[in-house]
């Protein structure tokens, strides 16, 4: 399986966000934040920072825990 570039993927998704996520601001915010973060890291020629991983960890953990608790 080939692997998608994260930036290309998120760019591909962005045009659909306003249309797709009317009233779904949380998911829109997630995609927007992920796009911005990865683009910035790549543009600066660096990896994901500790602060960015911390936010990512919190985001994914909260969703995981909420699904398991539902």
């Amino acid at each position, binding site marked *: *399986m*080939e*692997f*998608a*570039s*994260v*930036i*290309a*993927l*998120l*760019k*591909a*998704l962005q*045009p*659909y*966000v306003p*249309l*797709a*996520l*009317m*009233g*779904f601001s*949380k*998911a829109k915010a*997630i*995609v927007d*934040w*992920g*796009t911005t*973060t*990865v683009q910035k*890291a*790549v543009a600066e020629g660096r*990896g*994901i920072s500790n602060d*960015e*991983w911390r936010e*990512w960890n919190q*985001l*994914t953990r909260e*969703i*995981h825990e*909420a*699904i*398991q608790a*539902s």
Partner: protein
Amino acid sequence: MKTIILAAALALGLSGCALFEGETAEHDVFGVGIAYAAVGTAALEYTTLPRCSDTQPAPCSEQAAVDHIKNLDNVAYNALKAAQQAAMADSTSLAAQRAAANAFAAVLAMEQALLGFGVIEEPIAETAAEESV
């Protein structure tokens, strides 16, 4: 339910054909995590509905479907964390790339379940991904 369909479809771009190499496994894992979060958000919209019963009309969620989604969520989340560890250890290693691909596959499996249960209806973002290249 419309928002569920549309929001989850965002992450379905991961299953599209517009694939090319990411910068490093670290960036890829980060992106897979974002997709997981988007799919998970859609899944949550379904799993937090009241369970269907004789006295609970639609919109409601089927217990069997919720159980299946929870199992797939566990697999995806664990694969994601394993991929994160591998990428942070050596983002250029084959092991990190494989772990990222495993996590990617697990997120796709979660999406497929949402499609199968009718939580989402079509992978519209797949088209978006194809058109973007």
